[in-house]
């Protein structure tokens, strides 16, 4: 029985949404839908990545993303090892490249890396044979977050094309917004971003979104509202005068949510600052899909690992 050439991911790594084509994004989302079913089974495990080793190199603190990757890895029967930034050689002044080379000497199949400096996964991918997955590099990209956001929207609203998605918050420092803008507009959605002018990066429209300063303008009639976490102080610089002022102008309150379409989804990549960028009534309300995002995160990461474990060639006979 001959098999038509199956769609696949080009390249050995997932460094961002930017290099992905719409069909590749579609493939990941379709595969993730199947992976989600594994969570419904009595035995939540399949042997697809048995014998593969995954190293989680989390050089920027994160509990939930790391957990999510670990769970995805274990559900695929891979061997999973996690390194976080405290108490490792990194803090003894070892360079990123040396850390990674030492890890590679132990031959992991995958390295999942989160790092505070943009471009770090790219560095590793150039030098190492392992498949590199970007779990967040500085303010650049967080591709699996955008993928799980898209999966959540698709499952709830049936599609991505033609939707209006509003993303609100500290755009300057957010890798989540960059990955989401790239993915959503590539899949045919309209993205409206909003944030205080001091936190809008230069020429953001060039990424393919509308830029607003007033949150109300972005939310009006939207199908989805995604709120970003705000950090008032970063590296000793005040980005915004006070919490109260931020809440007054940029928080998602029940009143503001009414400006969106009925049934508009409320999303947040987490962790939330309740009472700062999002009101608890909205976060816990009926339109919130924030917890589904977390569940879908495992499925998406399973899909990415599964698809990257592939190569080129013909499948064998039945």
């Amino acid at each position, binding site marked *: 029985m001959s098999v038509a050439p199956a769609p696949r991911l080009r390249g050995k790594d997932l460094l961002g949404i930017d290099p992905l084509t719409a069909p590749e994004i579609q493939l990941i989302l379709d595969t993730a839908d199947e992976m989600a079913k594994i969570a419904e089974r009595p035995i939540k495990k399949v042997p697809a990545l048995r014998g593969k080793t995954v190293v989680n190199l989390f050089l920027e603190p994160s509990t939930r993303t790391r957990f999510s990757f670990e769970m995805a890895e274990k559900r695929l029967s891979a061997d999973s090892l996690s390194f976080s930034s405290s108490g490792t050689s990194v803090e003894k002044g070892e360079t990123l490249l040396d850390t990674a080379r030492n890890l590679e000497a132990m031959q992991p199949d995958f390295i999942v890396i989160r790092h505070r*400096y943009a471009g770090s996964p790219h560095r590793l991918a150039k030098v190492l044979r392992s498949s590199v997955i970007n779990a967040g*590099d*500085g*303010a650049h990209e967080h591709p699996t977050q955008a993928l799980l956001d898209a999966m959540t929207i698709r499952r709830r609203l049936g599609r991505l094309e033609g939707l209006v998605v509003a993303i609100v918050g500290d755009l300057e420092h957010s890798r989540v917004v960059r990955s989401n803008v790239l993915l959503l507009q590539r899949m045919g959605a309209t993205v409206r971003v909003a944030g205080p002018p001091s936190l809008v990066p230069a020429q953001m429209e060039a990424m393919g979104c509308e830029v607003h300063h007033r949150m109300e303008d972005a939310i009006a009639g939207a199908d989805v509202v995604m709120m970003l976490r705000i950090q008032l102080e970063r590296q000793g610089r005040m980005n915004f005068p006070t919490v109260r002022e931020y809440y007054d102008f940029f928080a998602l309150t029940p009143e503001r949510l009414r400006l969106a379409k009925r049934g508009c989804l409320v999303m947040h990549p987490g962790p939330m600052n309740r009472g700062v960028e999002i009101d608890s009534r909205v976060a816990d309300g009926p339109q919130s899909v924030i917890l589904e995002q977390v569940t879908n995160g495992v499925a998406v990461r399973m899909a990415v690992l599964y698809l990257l474990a592939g190569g080129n060639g013909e499948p064998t006979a039945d």
Partner: protein
Amino acid sequence: MSRLLIKHARVIDPSQRLDEGLDVLAVDGRIARLAERIEERGAEVIDAAGLVATPGFIDVHTHLREPGFEYKETIASGAAAALAGGFTAVCCMPNTSPVNDTAAVTEFIRKRAEEAGAARVYPIGAVSKGLAGEELAEMGEMVRAGAVAVSDDGQPVRHAYLLRRALEYSLLFGIPVVDHCEDPTLSAGGVMHEGAVSTRLGLRGIPAAAEEVMVARDVTLAGLTGARLHIAHLSTRQSLEWVRRAKNQGLSVSCEVTPHHLALTDAAVSESSYDTNFKMNPPLRSADHVAALLEGVLDGTVDCLATDHAPHHADEKALEFDLAPFGVVGLETAVPVTYDLLVRQHKLPLARFVALWSTNPARLFSLPGGTLKVGSVADLTLLDTEARLPVNPDRFVSRSRNTPFAGRRLRGWPVATILAGKVVWRRERR
């Protein structure tokens, strides 16, 4: 008596409006004759048929790293790299360790350069003690020891009042004050040009305004003091506008532009996937700024080209983009990169090209050379305008290899460098 005869070259010397096939005779290190057919017995003869002969090229902005950072470059290796790049002289910046803010360090640099016996090295002294930007350094003593200008390069002269004092004081010695124009409060944390590319890459940007506000300030102070101001590595459209305006007003303001700011845009950071060989300060700018710089070169607003040769060790550049130091080497690529871009692509007359690399630098910094008038020092650069060769960092004479031009196939390579009538460097046949 030593004699050198260069035959059959196309001799280009803007200082004499010369552009013709001539023979050049140098005797005891000085230009003796320029004529169509010279015969001179006992002279060493160079057949320069098919080559261009110009007054030796001068790079007014390099970092030789010695004293203090010899692992990146030394005066000897840097001066040798200069020769290999077709330069007979360089000016070196004071951000060494210790800083060149006294006659003693200036003297040290000159001595080391003499010992090396490679390209001529003219030190640029610091404006402020320790480059701290607070108190003026001993300008006069440094000039006596051989400094040809002052600068705090690596950083700006932070306080306007100090720049004013430096400009005024410099009038006593007739030297230019070179400023690295950057407002640190606007550029803080930035690692590349602020624009669509930095946004997409998630890197903090350095806005063009960070340079422009300082250029505006400096030009105003040049007007106030009547002194000579030279803007280092100018990189934006508005900066150029300020310089144009200053010149129109008759101020003694000059500026230099680097090869990389003409040949590359900020897109290179994205296309190379965060390669730190594209990280320098000022950063590579967007296409609009680059277009303005090219216009400025073509219309004469830009006085000279300069490399801002900034060697760094491979380990330092192997860090993440945010952490790697700013800077790229330039001595061994500057001439072919700019020849290829300006003369071949943009049809800049060859005489103007020579003026940008030799005549004008010599004039602006009052250096010997920059001319082939009879009696002047016999420093010459011989160029091959035809052979197309790739940039090969592994063969660099410099100690460092941090170049953005690796692998580029270019024309306009130097084939020999002549210092005081002696051939001190020749390109090997491959």
